[in-house]
């Protein structure tokens, strides 16, 4: 295996806009909001940035194509700006681009910014859009909840779980994320909810009810990265460095070959195994302090606990119900509210997860700050459908060099 990215790149500054229904803001307003916080945190002039990456997934409902919208919004001085899109994992792709640029030495300081302005469609849920000329001619007319809901059907069938037991564990996940979101001033959804509310909510796609689905939000998040050496030279003492960046992409085995049973993410299992190897983590259940996963739906979070090799296969329901992933549990999951409550402005989400880890590592997470000094933080950013997706697993941690 290649030597990997571990400790080659440190985070110099981060920013994140408030997520939510930002009716009064354009995408460029949100970009500037996240950027202002990040550049101030980094403590550098804009002119020090050598290259930038922009992540947006559904650009047709807001900024349009290319890197130009970011260069325009921030008035970047003719530097390279690349727009990336990899479904809902786009934010992690922008981060990967910036980190790799620094690691390669091509850039001293690089910027990654994700933005999504989803609330100009006139309806709730993600925008309906073309899947490509041929795909639109034969794919099932899937929605995001409808495709992820199928994990539940397959998981029940595989593990012999009663529908009510699975639904309860899914509800616990949502209740937990609402509790966490209530402590996060930038979160889209800050209300606490009860198990009854979640279990009795209107159905969206069986068995996912309204509270099994994450918020569809406007928002932006931004990271500025550099080498640990440059960060130190700029006066930074406590550093958060990148330990692993992995991406696994479906090649048709899940969707066209008969080896996958539909109850898990083949990509997540591969990406997380590689990430632990890159970061030097042997026992993730014991060594990972915090996780931010792609909880687009409660069932996604549940099966992901197993795919990250933290819960044993078939054991996620028990861990969830035991509070293992609650904010006061052994490995808190979504301590910031997650996609569920912080919100899911698609291109921003991967960077928002890193933002939370960064704050937690530096003790800056306010009311929701984890007390036990987190060491490794894992972020999991997923895009597409369970049967055909891209999965990004990143690990950041305190720089101990």
């Amino acid at each position: 295996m290649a030597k990997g990215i571990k400790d080659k790149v440190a985070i110099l500054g981060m920013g994140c806009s408030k997520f939510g229904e930002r009716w009064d803001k354009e995408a460029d307003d949100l970009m500037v909001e996240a950027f202002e916080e990040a550049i101030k945190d980094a403590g550098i002039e804009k002119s020090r940035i050598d290259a930038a990456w922009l992540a947006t997934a559904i650009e047709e409902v807001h900024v349009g194509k290319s890197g130009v919208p970011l260069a325009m919004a921030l008035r970047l001085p003719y530097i390279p700006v690349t727009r990336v899109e990899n479904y809902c994992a786009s934010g992690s792709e922008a981060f990967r681009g910036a980190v790799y640029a620094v690691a390669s030495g091509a850039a001293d300081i690089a910027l990654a910014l994700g933005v999504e302005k989803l609330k100009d469609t006139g309806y709730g849920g993600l925008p309906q859009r073309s899947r490509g000329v041929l795909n639109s001619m034969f794919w099932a007319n899937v929605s995001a909840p409808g495709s992820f809901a199928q994990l539940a059907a397959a998981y029940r069938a595989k593990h012999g779980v009663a529908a009510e037991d699975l639904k309860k564990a899914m509800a616990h996940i949502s209740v937990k994320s609402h509790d966490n979101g209530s402590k996060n001033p930038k979160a889209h959804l800050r209300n606490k909810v009860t198990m009854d509310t979640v279990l009795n909510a209107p159905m969206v796609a069986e068995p996912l009810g309204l509270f099994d689905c994450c918020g569809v939000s406007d928002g932006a998040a931004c990271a500025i990265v550099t080498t640990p050496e440059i960060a130190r030279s700029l006066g930074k003492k406590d550093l958060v460095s990148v330990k692993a960046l992995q991406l696994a992409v479906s090649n048709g085995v899940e969707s066209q070959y008969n080896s996958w049973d539909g109850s898990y993410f083949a990509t997540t299992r591969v990406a997380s195994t590689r990430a632990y190897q890159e970061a030097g983590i042997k026992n993730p259940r014991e060594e990972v302090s915090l996780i931010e996963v792609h909880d687009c739906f409660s069932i996604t979070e549940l099966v992901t606990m197993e795919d990250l090799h933290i819960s044993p296969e078939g054991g996620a329901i028990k861990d969830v119900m035991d509070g293992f992933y609650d904010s006061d549990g052994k490995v808190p999951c979504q301590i910031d509210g997650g996609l569920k409550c912080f919100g899911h402005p698609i291109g921003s989400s991967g960077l928002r997860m890193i933002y939370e880890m960064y704050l937690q590592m530096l003790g800056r997470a306010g009311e929701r700050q984890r007390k036990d000094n987190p060491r490794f933080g894992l972020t999991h950013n997923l895009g597409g459908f369970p049967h055909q997706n891209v999965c990004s697993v990143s690990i950041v941690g305190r720089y101990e060099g």
Partner: protein
Amino acid sequence: MVGITSFGGYIPRLRLSRKAIVDANSWQNSALKAYAKAERAICNWDEDSLTMAVEAGRDCLSGQDRAGVKAVYFASTTFPFDDRLNAGIAAEALNLGSDITTLDVSASLRAGTSGLIAALKTVQAGGGPLLYLASDKRRTKAASQQELLYGDGAVALLLGDKDPIAKFVASHSEAIDFVDHYRGHGSDFDYAWEERWIRDEGYAKIVPPALAALLEKAKLKPGEITHFCMPVTLRGVAVSVAKKLGVGETAVRDNLDGQCGDTGTSHPLVMLVHALQDAKPGDKILIASFGQGCDAMVFEATAALPKLERRSGIKGALARRKPETNYNKYLSFNNLVTTEKGLRSEVDKWTALSTLFRKRGLLTGLIGGKCTKCGTVQIPKSNICVNPNCNAIHSQEDHPFSDIPGRVNSYTADLLTFSPDPPAHYGMVQFAEGGRMMVDFTDVDQGAIQVGMPMRMVFRIKEHDAQRNFTKYFWKAAPAAQTAKEN
């Protein structure tokens, strides 16, 4: 000896209760109450005359040599396309190859029989085996008598000159421009004249002489007719015509008026297939088809009939029945009322015709690939084998999936995505020979789907592009138990 070598039938599963129609509309026309009993067949939102014809064709071709079929004729007054060969779409959906003769026949309720007579002549001239399709999805005005009496349905007949199950004996046609109803170019609905006039000046005067001429050609006495098929919904007309001719009243067959309704240009043949499912060798079946004149035909069941592999036919299709009492749903399916479909329905459903052409094997024929290196069956067919232990390049040959049974791997009932009949059911279907697909489901009852459930692929409307009036078709999975063979 030329005749019918196989048959198939299709009646949509949904049966709208006539009472539901009457309850909704008798406030404005109390005469409708006379028809408040029984039911009529209605298409699901994703069915039309083409999809029904394809299903009937599959039923007809089960156990038959598809590769030998040399021609496809298709009769309908409700083709989805005025200018695009409908028989050609059916032929591709049925994977009959391109080396065939095709013909669409239309413009009269008599088209079903007129086309059949022409098809039999083609076969006599050596142009068979010929697959003959007839199908109608009859659009009517809300609160009309037609809404109660009409129905949707299709039949398929395989015609050939070897070992027919029913021998073609004779036919006779009369062309008389008697306009009992018409549908002008571009109109959605029929315009009809008074029933008493149609009965007395139309059926009573036009049909009997045509039938008499037919019997003379066939050298048959009226009493020799064992099955008298005359699709007319006016009460008592078929019996009175039979009597006038000298055919016994017991030979007059049920016009299925209360089961599927009058399926238009297909109906004489719906009754023919229904009769074949009851017939014994030697039985003589007469069909009388009315419409700007009359077509009359006689077939004689042969000793090969009992040997034909069991199939659904019209009887099986009639038995595969789901009662529907929601009249508003019927109105909405047929765009007879403007319903709020939500902003999600506004996605542009544009079709790249060049892509459709390039991928017509997949899109119309449901053809996938089979790897010649490792044997893995997969869909879509691709350049590189999906088996991770093979990945052979350019190794796949065509492999049709439409008749391979499948099972549900995962599923959902989705209330968010746009569907004319929410919730939208879809899921992963795994095929018995290998391969799988995330596909739309159809003909599903809410709560009925389970992991492992057997499914059968059916050719259906995927979407309608209203902006360009283009109907997109693809295959969907339907619960297999509902499509079990009967009779």
